[in-house]
């Protein structure tokens, strides 16, 4: 006799218990600490902060531990947490011109004020698995000392030395389009529904928290001809910047902390017309942490999406299609909807079954009648 399937609640509890066991893994092996993840898997932590839109390396490391290394799952945890946080206020815009530089390179000039600083990069490593890392011992301390920090200014704000941007030099000669500074506060993508057509600030927000793989592939596609923009890396800089807030009661800004960011400015193909002399155009990327690949990809896609305001043609390239890019860049939304097809859909499937049975019956009947 048929008994309806019940026990969903017990199944869920058992599944969660098993999950906790799997997460811990072999109990004969040392537990992974949040501090270890934060320190030794910093690039994963950076990605989770960037896509989670929350700067907190400890929380990001915790999310990675809890999600068993599934970074999109970790981003989801961070985002869900972020939603619950009270908003005290907004900082002033960060000044990337005053950055404690860890890394700073430009592909457009051999040398420039501030220098080319290689920084801790994988770029010139040979990709050979280092089996010495499998041994549990310590690696010898490096001989490079930490960069000297700048003296504190009078107001109590920690002032990094100003290192001018390459685009600043090009701008002085009028060679690159000026970005007009604005006073208005940009809308917050996490507080307002996405509306299309989008403004550039909204696009940049969506890109910086968009999936790194998706943005990377779109950027790659522009390099291969799908909306080519002839990008040069004018400037890539990584380092810490001060975060400041205006306190009305004090009448001045106070530094409340610092964040590490990666900033990329690309110099792209020039526009111009009979009346306007040609100028280089720009792409921009800004991401939490040392997150180079994402920052560079972001600036290429940003530039591709500016085709309309620069008077270029829409070639049908995916990276130029604002709605396509912005609606599909969010990996938490994407995975949620993708994975939802695992949920029961048998009611709708039943409706389709009935329909297809009926249509087949009618088609068979017609065929028999014809014979």
């Amino acid at each position, binding site marked *: 006799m*048929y008994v309806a399937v019940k026990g969903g609640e017990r199944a869920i509890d058992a599944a969660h218990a098993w999950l906790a066991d799997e997460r811990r893994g072999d109990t004969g092996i040392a537990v992974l600490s949040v501090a270890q993840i934060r320190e030794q898997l910093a690039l994963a932590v950076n990605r989770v902060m960037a896509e989670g839109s929350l700067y907190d390396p400890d929380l990001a490391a915790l999310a990675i531990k809890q999600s068993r290394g599934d970074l999109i799952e970790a981003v989801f945890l961070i985002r869900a947490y972020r939603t619950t946080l009270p908003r005290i206020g907004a900082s002033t815009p960060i000044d990337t011109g005053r950055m404690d530089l860890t890394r700073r390179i430009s592909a457009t000039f051999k040398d420039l004020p501030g220098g080319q600083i290689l920084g801790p990069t994988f770029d010139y490593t040979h990709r050979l698995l280092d089996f010495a890392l499998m041994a549990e011992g310590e690696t010898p301390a490096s001989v490079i000392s930490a960069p000297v920090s700048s003296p504190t200014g009078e107001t109590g704000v920690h002032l990094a030395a100003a290192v001018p941007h390459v685009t600043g030099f090009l701008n002085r000669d009028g060679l690159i389009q000026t970005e007009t500074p604005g006073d208005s506060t940009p809308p917050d993508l996490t507080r307002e529904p996405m509306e299309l057509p989008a403004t550039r600030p909204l696009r940049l927000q969506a890109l910086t928290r968009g999936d790194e793989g998706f943005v990377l592939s779109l950027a790659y596609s522009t390099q291969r001809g799908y909306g080519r923009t002839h990008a040069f890396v004018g400037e890539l800089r990584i380092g810490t910047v001060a975060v400041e807030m205006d306190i009305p009661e004090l009448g001045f800004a106070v530094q409340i902390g610092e964040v590490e960011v990666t900033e990329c400015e690309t110099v792209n193909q020039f526009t111009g017309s009979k009346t306007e002399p040609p100028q280089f155009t720009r792409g921009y990327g800004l991401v939490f942490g040392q997150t180079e690949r994402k920052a560079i990809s972001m600036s290429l896609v940003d530039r591709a999406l500016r085709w309309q305001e620069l008077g270029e043609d829409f070639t049908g390239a995916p990276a130029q299609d604002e*709605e396509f890019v912005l609606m599909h860049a969010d990996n938490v939304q994407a995975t949620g909807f993708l994975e*939802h097809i695992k949920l029961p859909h048998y009611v709708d499937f*039943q409706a389709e079954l009935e329909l297809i049975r009926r249509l087949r019956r009618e088609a068979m009947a017609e065929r028999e009648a014809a014979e």
Partner: protein
Amino acid sequence: MTDQAYNFAYLDEQTKRMIRRAILKGIAIPGYQVPFASREMPMPYGWGTGGVQVTAACLTPDDTLKVIDQGADDTTNAVSIRKFFQRTAGVAVTEATTEATIIQTRHRIPETALTKGQILVYQVPIPEPLRFLEPRETETRKMHELEEYGLMHVKLYEDIARHGTIATSYDYPVKVEGRYVMDPSPIPKFDNPKLSDNPAIQLFGAGREQRIYALPPHTHVVSLDFDDHPFTASKAAHDCDLCAAQDSYLDEVITDDQGNRMFVCSDTDFCRSRREAGHLGRLGTPLSEVEQ
């Protein structure tokens, strides 16, 4: 963070206010999709976050909540969502449709008729009825604004030309108060007639797509069709094998390796109430303590 650190029903009051404003707009313009700033919720997008946000915005401590998925209270996602609200709101929960003040549902409308004062919250994956005919949001928005629904009827025409009948069995588009074409969520078309002139408030939440829409009580809702190919609310031509109901939507269950099958009410509460009242189907037996 402990559960006590969360606000009643998880969302902070500002967010609830924002959602309620969207709901009120939706009620004022039946069938119109109101954009809202969907929040990240602790369950994934696509798993009912829109419905959960709408329910959270409506809940008061005195409410009694019912959550169903595919018509059943005990499917995993319904269990998960009900537990979420028990933890974060502490409201009374029930499986009985008649006792609930708020019902959150995925893919079904309960068989038991709803009454004035009840709220039915639908989980919606894709709120835009024209989405698969026109992928661009910028374009579909204009089509709604200008009442340009020709494309929708073209699709129905094509179905009849190809299959002899309209080939949509669920997610069947409707016209609301003669103005907006609306997606009723993936309920089977069998449920469509219940949308119209319903004494309850019906709210639709799409979290990932960031839209809320609504049908106030006693709204006139018509399923799209042609005069000579009228809409029919069809279902499998069987009675429920457990409770003998003739007019309830049925699940098909394969019972053995030979492919034998039986049909049972998708609405588990409805089926159980009928059996408690003594109605028995072909394979039904009186309810014993074992099953309850």
